[in-house]
């Protein structure tokens, strides 16, 4: 089936794009400019969100898990896998749920996902440290996720709008 091949190719491209974005973000961390531990733009989330809107929930989740596995392989860090998986999967599940609620736009879905991502990562930190002290960062990170979530939502909206004219993913 042509559509299946097309979807598979698109998934692979998006996974590569997400990987590239997260590697780039690690090279130029926002924390260098804003001294807040753990603050990230979450550029790779643009890809996840875009995939959710263009391809659906299952492909988006597949792309996310593939990105997390390959990303931690690139970083050569096993504990990074727990962080990215817990943050990423929780964000994905929240975004899938929020998107089903038709009243929300891509902005609401994106902000919810960004907040869930931070909660998941703090959860991973609590597990690895065996200490709840990191929970103190949650209020700050949640506040920042309002900004980063709006930003990724805005970019995803632009992308989805552009794709509506291209009809690449569903012809």
């Amino acid at each position, binding site marked *: 089936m042509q559509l299946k091949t097309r979807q598979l190719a698109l998934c692979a491209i998006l996974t590569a794009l997400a990987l590239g974005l997260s590697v780039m973000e690690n090279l130029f961390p926002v924390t260098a400019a804003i001294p807040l*531990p753990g603050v990230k733009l979450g550029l790779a989330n643009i890809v996840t969100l875009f995939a959710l809107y263009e391809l659906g929930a299952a492909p988006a989740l597949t792309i996310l898990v593939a990105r997390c596995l390959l990303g931690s392989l690139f970083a050569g860090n096993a504990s990074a896998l727990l962080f990215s998986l817990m943050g990423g999967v929780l964000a994905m599940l929240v975004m899938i749920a929020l998107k089903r609620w038709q009243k*929300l736009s891509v902005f609401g879905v994106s902000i919810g996902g960004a*907040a869930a991502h931070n909660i998941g990562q703090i959860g991973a930190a609590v597990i690895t440290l065996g200490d709840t002290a990191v929970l*103190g960062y949650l209020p*700050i990170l949640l506040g920042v996720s309002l900004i980063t979530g709006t930003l990724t939502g805005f970019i995803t909206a632009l992308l989805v709008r552009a794709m509506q004219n291209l009809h690449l993913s569903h012809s």
Partner: protein
Amino acid sequence: MQSSSPKLRPTAWDSLIVLAVIVLAIGTAIVFYGGLGGGDHITVTITHRGETVEKVMLEALNEEKTVTIDGTYQLTVVLSRDGVWVSESNCPSQDCLHTGTVSRAGQSIVCLPEQVVIRLDGKSDGPDIILG
């Protein structure tokens, strides 16, 4: 599977999500920082990979004390009556240095790469803190 027309412009309902995140942020802030204020009797506990390496009351310090943590990365923690800070670390993220000085109960400095938690607890006249 595709929703016919995805909403790409912010809707009024989106503000509900924003509100929920704000409420959650304020809620966790109150839980974590609401019970603060007891300025005296602050105990500093430094744990490294789950094990307590240092536990000292701030007011008992007459001069600055440094604690070195040696693992994959090396951290130097300075403790004084005025607070606690990480003065040196060769970890990649440098988050612990960016945190700066902590001096109030409930505050903490966390180093994820080396799994170090520096925690300040108040209201601890006796040895009644149990860290899970």
